[in-house]
């Protein structure tokens, strides 16, 4: 279910790190909790994001959710497809519905995140609550 090559946060974001570039999205668990996504608000290329701080919002019909940055970095790419097709977040959260790409300030930031295995254990606990 949760791709091995991604790293995960407790706030249900994922990041895929290739060298100094990280691609960020929200997890399948998060999209399922939100329900039908109808609006995605993201930063612009050149903006700076800070680990554990909100960098955007995702809105479903029933709720608003902030998206938290897994790492520090500079935004180098924004998924423009989501402006007109926010529902991609529901259909392909770990793939087509990536949110932003960032240049990591410090590659070591990613070391603090969860592996797929740890994340799966984490959400299993969440679901049991």
């Amino acid at each position, binding site marked *: 279910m949760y791709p091995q090559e991604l790293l995960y946060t407790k706030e249900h974001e994922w990041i895929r790190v290739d060298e100094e570039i990280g691609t960020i999205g929200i997890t399948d668990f998060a999209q399922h909790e939100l*329900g*039908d996504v109808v*609006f995605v*608000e993201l930063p612009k290329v050149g903006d700076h994001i800070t680990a554990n701080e909100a960098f955007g*919002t995702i809105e479903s*019909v*029933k709720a608003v959710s902030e998206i938290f940055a897994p790492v520090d970095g500079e935004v180098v790419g924004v998924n423009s497809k989501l402006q007109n097709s926010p529902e991609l977040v529901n259909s392909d959260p770990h793939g087509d519905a990536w949110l932003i790409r960032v240049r990591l300030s410090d590659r070591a930031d990613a070391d603090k995140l969860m592996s797929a295995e740890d994340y799966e254990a984490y959400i299993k606990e969440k679901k049991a609550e």
Partner: protein
Amino acid sequence: MRAPVGVELKRTPLHAIHKSLGARLVEFGGWEMPIEYTGIVQEHLAVRTAAGLFDVSHMGEIDIQGPEALALVQWVTSNDAARLHDLQAQYSALMYPQGAAVDDCLVHRLSQDHYFLCVNAANSDKDFAWIVQNNRFNAEVRNVSAEYAQIALQGPKGEEILARLTRADLSALRYYWFCIARCCSVDGLLARTGYTGEDGFEFYFPAPESARVWNEFLEAGKPMGLVPVGLGARNTLRLEAGYALYGHELDEETSLIEANLGWIVKPDKGDFLGRGILTEQLAHGTSKKLVGFEMVDRGIARDGFAVQMGTETVGRVTSGTHVPFLKKSIGMAYVPTELAAVGNEIKIDIRGKPARARQVPLPFYKRPK
């Protein structure tokens, strides 16, 4: 979405069925209710294009009987129940003397001395206590909420589906009329009413039968596209249809006139709670007014967001979201009366950023005839 600690949530008799259908359950007005089964968008669209089945057993029912039943109903509600014929229903409001609603409700007249009120779940105890407290007549008032299950079948395919489950003459049952009908071998009150903006029916029947009745409805409707619908889509459907929801457009401080509900205020019927102030407001207007809007700028206005003029807050959004059928971000808000006009722009504070919205006529959605 967490209930206050130590409060046991109430469950409808269909709770186990919702779980088995994979519904996501949330707290609503003291009840644990399904908010969605497969998803709000899909459920909403099913009701607009085919049909949806809702468990609304959490709604309250209050029975008023006796020779003075009509006198009591007339005293505590704003609409004119004397205009009702037997087996006719009416949208109305239970009133405070200050002109605000205790609750909004449906009044069904079974006979001249027997009325059956459907009220909001979270308000039913309050409503019952209020009616009893104001029963200076000799009417018999009973809170029968626990005795009844209620399911709503809504959508253009509703009549065709229901025809498979009852011998009642549905084509003769007009909007806001009801009959005592046998449906799935259960006798109940079958009304052509609803809260979705579509044609549809609401069936009140004895709670112990609810699981079987629900399953027979779903089974009969499946070939016509019937799906179970949760409270999430119930809310987006009623918002598109421009219906008020108590706790949002209506509350203990808001007058019916401010809420555009002057059409259920009938001062000519004789005295009733709130008549004085409502009559005054009907003649002279109010300082604020409920309006409908759609977003011009990107963004979604949510319940509670401020309406601004310059940097000043002049009003508040009462309901707002992105609705699935119209595919727009819409909402309702209270604004100063001098700003209320279709076409006028207002600004809404979306998390610190002012976003433009344009006032549009209510309802947002009207079903094709």
